[in-house]
């Protein structure tokens, strides 16, 4: 199915919604709320109780925010979270010299991000590093506080040295996978007519528009993500910040609903760094399910004893599994599929083999997202009852602001959770299988069967799904 034939619902045709999106106040209000939550989380982490279950930092960040991100924000809104994320905000405000539209001279050197680093490899590295320490980060409030604060200052520093939101685009460990999985979301921001963009000399969506006369009184910044909206074909690098909606004088930008996973079959812009992100995410979901949720005390201990010999063993195993074993097995599956399907010539060169590997790795996005949703389901309902006490006593200092401080722990939906998890994993498997088939069909004549090329990849997905079902549901 080509992109043109997809059914889409333009949301910006609803004037009230468009006004809400263009006006800076609703966005600023959401950002302010997020910033308050962030400050509270960082402060509670740094100064609050070391008891994770009674500290706002742990419960709010790693259970509530993470669950909202994985169960709602990413699957339905793609990079929607990035548009209100508080971490880059102070840096961006300093860079812009304003909280709202262009209003004054900002701070910073405005340097271009180095060309060699224009990829998500640094984000991959950041996520892997965090993942190696996750057992302690997820349970020790002080460490969570340090990491949140460090993110804030790195983001500020990056904004003061480099132009636009370089931190979000190239450094944020979370942003990398949100971008990857945002391809599956049903929300996209695109141009209505690329010809209009081609004919627009000023390209204010990229360069910014500070002249209220040009656009019905609206002004805005050039795309903070460094993307020319006229060339947007995937959600990966669109932060849904709505700046282009504000700066386009031709009303050529639209926010629209589309079928889930529409970007998966966009051949342009597939890269090895994104393929590896898919393996890192899938590998991390598998390892976390084994280490954090499994009954193997020795493995759990090894993950917790950072710096010890068992921890180095755990780290080595994590890296080997995620960065070598999973990609190697997948690469083998792709090659077997190509040979079996009689496409030996299509993988004759190293470059072709790499392209095939990168192309089929796209099918891992729905599988990985399903894995993370299933993983998140395993703890979110079980730990939801920690929320009232930490709202009433965020620091664990003995406050009782709302009278909920002694709200007892009780797991919710324990009977339903395994069914939900299994359903999500099976949907993810089916979706990934369908994606693999369509990806296999991309380099074949129209109508030619692609099953043989896709089958080994489907088998890989099946084994991953089976393992996850075993680890999460038992």
């Amino acid at each position, binding site marked *: 199915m080509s992109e043109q034939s997809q059914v889409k619902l333009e949301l910006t045709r609803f004037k009230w919604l468009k006004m809400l999106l263009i006006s800076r106040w609703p966005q600023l209000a959401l950002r302010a709320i997020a910033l308050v939550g962030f400050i509270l989380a960082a402060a509670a982490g740094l100064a609050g109780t070391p*008891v994770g*279950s*009674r500290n706002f930092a742990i419960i709010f960040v790693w259970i509530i925010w993470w669950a909202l991100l994985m169960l709602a924000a990413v699957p339905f809104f793609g990079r929607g979270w990035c548009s209100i994320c508080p971490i880059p905000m102070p840096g961006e405000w300093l860079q812009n010299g304003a*909280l709202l539209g*262009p209003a*004054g001279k900002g701070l910073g050197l405005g340097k271009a991000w180095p060309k060699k680093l224009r990829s998500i490899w640094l984000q991959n590295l950041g996520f892997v590093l965090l993942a190696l320490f996750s057992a302690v980060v997820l349970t020790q409030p002080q460490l969570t506080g340090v990491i949140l604060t460090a993110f804030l200052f790195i983001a500020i520093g990056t904004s003061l040295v480099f132009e636009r939101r370089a931190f979000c685009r190239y450094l944020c460990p979370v942003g990398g996978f949100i971008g990857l999985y945002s391809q599956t979301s049903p929300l996209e921001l695109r141009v209505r007519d690329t010809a209009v963009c081609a004919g627009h000399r000023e390209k204010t969506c990229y360069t910014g528009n*500070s002249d209220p006369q040009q656009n019905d009184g609206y002004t805005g910044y050039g795309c903070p993500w460094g993307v020319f909206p006229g060339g947007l074909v995937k959600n990966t690098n669109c932060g849904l910040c709505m700046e282009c909606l504000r700066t386009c004088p031709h009303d050529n930008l639209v926010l629209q609903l589309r079928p889930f996973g529409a970007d998966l079959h966009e051949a342009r812009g597939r890269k090895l760094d994104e393929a590896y992100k898919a393996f890192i995410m899938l590998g991390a979901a598998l390892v976390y399910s084994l280490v954090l949720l499994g009954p193997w005390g020795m493995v759990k201990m090894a993950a917790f004893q950072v710096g010890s010999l068992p921890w180095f063993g755990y780290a080595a195993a994590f890296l080997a599994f995620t960065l070598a074993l999973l990609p190697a097995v997948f690469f083998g599956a792709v090659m077997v599929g190509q040979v079996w399907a009689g496409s030996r010539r299509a993988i004759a060169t190293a470059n072709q083999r790499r392209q095939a590997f990168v192309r089929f790795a796209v099918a891992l996005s729905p599988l990985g997202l399903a894995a993370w949703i299933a993983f998140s389901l395993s703890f979110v309902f079980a730990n939801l009852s920690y929320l009232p006490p930490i709202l009433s006593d965020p620091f664990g*200092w*003995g406050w009782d602001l709302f009278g909920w401080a002694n709200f007892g722990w009780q797991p919710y939906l324990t009977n339903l959770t395994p069914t939900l998890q299994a359903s999500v994993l099976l949907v993810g498997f089916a979706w990934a299988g369908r994606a693999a088939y369509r990806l296999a069909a991309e380099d074949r004549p129209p109508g030619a069967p692609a099953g043989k090329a896709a089958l080994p990849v489907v088998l890989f997905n099946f084994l991953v799904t089976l393992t996850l079902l075993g680890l999460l549901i038992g």
Partner: protein
Amino acid sequence: MNVTATPSRHEKLARLLLLGLVVGLITAIALLGRGLLPRPERVIELRARMPENGGWLPESLTVETGEQVHLRMTSDDVVHGFAVGQNDMDPVDIYPGRFSEVSLVFNQPGKYTFYCTRWCGANHWRMRGVIEVTGQGEPRRSAGQPPYVVLGLDIDAPHPAEVIPAQEPRASQALELLADLPRSYLSPAYYQAHSPAETWLALRGEPALMDASDEELWDLVAWIWRANTTPEQLQTGEQLYAENCAACHGETGGGDGVFANAPAPGAEDHSGGLTGHGILPPTNFQDISTMLGAKPAVLHGKIVRGGMGTGMPYWGPVFTDEEIWALVAYLYAFHIEE
């Protein structure tokens, strides 16, 4: 890019609102913070960790006499317990991920030991902390020098019994000979300074008891030992033994408790390490020669001081003197029957 240099009215408002929000939040945290929150008592957060993970945090507390101290305790690893030594407070269990709370008031200045009351690991016995109470009030009464120091006894020396009975002595069978027993044997001072075997030898030399059989004299020794305790003391001793001693010495005193040979977790050479276990095994109270050769003052000293080349901790600051004597009496009960 042509930008205006002066912030617009909206921009100013946005800055004001955001600044107000952030400053308001920080002020609210500061005002509600630990220091300014009105509380009738001082709150101290106490973290319990296995000794190999660091033990109590903080390990020492300083409080004023009469000050109500509210402890909010939590565990970083396993289930622990909290109690203050030489105090009749009920132990409080401490669970990971939860807070256990207790309020304390100390009226006498001095040093108090707090300790873990749950077998949390092989080094459980090392899990101690100190509460230093300063301020007005009559200082805590010192227990004074323990009897083994007063008597000049070497509590580290082996003390095998010179003689042992053919069968375990029974106090209840000694009633017929009581009339011939010199009163001097019944004093607490005599009891503390002599082992059962020494007492038997002394009784054997008493002219009034010349006609008594060896077994009858052992029964008389048993009677003397029972006369220096009470059923309540024995019950206290049994409970203290089960809670604090059985882990190493075994439930039946055989020196075969669950931690008797446990290496310290993480100890590389397994030769004792932090626990001290493995250097010398815990004493086997089932060994009749050891027990009937031990003076009560020696057993008392061993409990107070600990050590002896084993993992035996010191219990002096934890148990009251009465509790230690109750424990000593209970230890003899392994061989001396009612």
